[in-house]
């Protein structure tokens, strides 16, 4: 069970105020983003129930939304998540090689997390960075023009805790 801080609750109220009276459910996507951030980057049932209580809606209304959108993680993920695009334009620029390189280096397949809970490798569909391919989402930002060397550097940064997620 989580409980938002006063500051986060204020943010929730501000978000709700953006929408018409009685349509507070409209704020569900941004609030789920906050909830996920507060809960180690994934949503479990108790978190979704908490969001339902904040919005005064039924828990099922939160579940059906959380399961629809690909940015919500419904199981635990690693501390660092590499979300590598694999769609056509990235593929033309070698994303397959980057995905398999990360997989070999960390000894995991796409969708898996390393046993120490540090890294998750996830393949994603087009993130709108086609001209800067191959690329991945890393936290809030994109890492673009990826090469094996850049991947090495990023993994090293993560291991030495200097990688910037936000």
């Amino acid at each position, binding site marked *: 069970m989580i409980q938002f801080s006063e500051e986060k609750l204020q943010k929730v109220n501000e978000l709700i105020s953006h929408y018409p009276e009685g349509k507070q459910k409209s704020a569900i996507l941004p609030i789920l983003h906050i909830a996920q951030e507060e809960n180690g980057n994934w949503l479990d049932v108790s978190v979704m129930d908490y969001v339902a209580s904040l919005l005064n809606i039924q828990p099922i*209304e939160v579940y059906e939304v959380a399961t*629809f*959108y690909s940015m919500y993680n419904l199981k635990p993920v690693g501390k660092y998540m590499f979300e590598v695009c694999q769609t056509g334009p990235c593929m033309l620029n070698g994303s397959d090689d980057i995905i398999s390189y990360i997989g070999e280096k960390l000894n995991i397949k796409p969708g898996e997390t390393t046993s120490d809970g540090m890294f998750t490798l996830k393949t994603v569909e087009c993130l709108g960075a086609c001209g800067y391919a191959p690329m991945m989402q890393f936290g809030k930002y994109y890492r673009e023009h990826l090469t094996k060397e850049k991947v090495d550097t990023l993994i090293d940064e993560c291991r030495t805790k200097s990688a910037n997620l936000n």
Partner: protein
Amino acid sequence: MQKLLLEKDHVEGIRFYETYRREGGYRSVEKAFKMSPADVVEEVKKSGLRGRGGAGFPTGMKWSFIAKPEGVPRHLVCNADESEPGTFKDRYLMEFLPHLLIEGLIVSSFALGSNVTYIYIRGEYAWIVDILEQAIIEAKNNGFLGKNILGSGFDCEIYVHSGAGAYICGEETALIESLEGKRGNPRIKPPFPAIKGAWDRPTVVNNVETIAAVVPVINMGGDEYAKIGLGKSTGTKLMSACGNINKPGVYEIDMTISVEEFIFSDEYCGGIPNGKRLKACIPGGSSVPILPTNLLLKTAKGETRYMNYESLSDGGFATGSMMGSGGFIVFDEDQCVVRHTYTLARFYRHESCGQCSPCREGTGWMEKILKNIEIGRGKMSDIDLLWDIQSKIEGNTICPLGDAAAWPVAAAIRHFRDEFEWHVLNPNEAQKRNYGLAHYANTLEVVA
């Protein structure tokens, strides 16, 4: 050529209000407030501006459809859910010229009578949300948002609404559902959003680039804007160029240049890297038909093909393609069309909302069959089966995602059937990607 949107994109500090204003920003708001909302709509109509999200529908006409029932609020929603593979122009605009979008939104909100306007942005563009919110605060601090803007009596607030990863939410009714806090399942039309949109209120949904283009339309006047370009392709268009080119990026074009110039000129894509030859191109985002070089550079009639709505679609789907969203994906001679089409089929299967059976089931079948062909486990009959499935998805779904999934598969088979057959006949070599020169030597017969 004259740039209307990206003229100032490299001015240092243009992301911030002070610089943007000093460079002539927000003049269109001052000008619009001296006009009536109906006159602003009229200017946009005269400009011939067409929706830049992909469909190319005339913007002024879309605006004129909005219902105005007494006492019911109306909304403008800016579609910043840019997710069509190959497309990254809206991101560029928002990242580098956020105030241009805010300026366009204020003018458009005034024209439509929207006192609360939303920017629905894809969740992955998380850092751009910060940039936009900063721009909104700056605009508000300088009196361009809030109550009684510049003493005009017009009130307007803009809120950024972050999505959470769903291509389908770029479809306007799915976007509205998502804005209401639901799954992004498209609605059956009619009623159209202009009558019954967000929270059952009249709503207009416009793409980022469309809204930004309203700024030059008002500044120069609709008639002058309409003089730029060719025929019904008025004004300028942002193209996001990617794939195998020397200079990928976002380019503003005036729709009078040829496809050949766009690909090979140093001003734009700068040609194909490593001395390779051009094999094919998807000129308007992943949904539109792929064209082999011979049909890309010239139409079936042998005329030069230009970078505009009419010329790119010359010949229909048999020998032409579409302008779409301006996502321009270039293939060099070593690229495998089967593999690329497989990644697109996987994309559409992943992004299908699941409401309509032909799309929900069909996209998955196409992905599986394409994967089998790509890895050397395909049969000759699979190619006809693929054709059959795509033809049964097209036109049989609530929203255009079904068509968008069907068209790339159809076009790949139509123009590169020999490549599919080669994969079936050479299963052990199927995954090698150095196959592709066939279309220089022998142009395939066109299948209608």
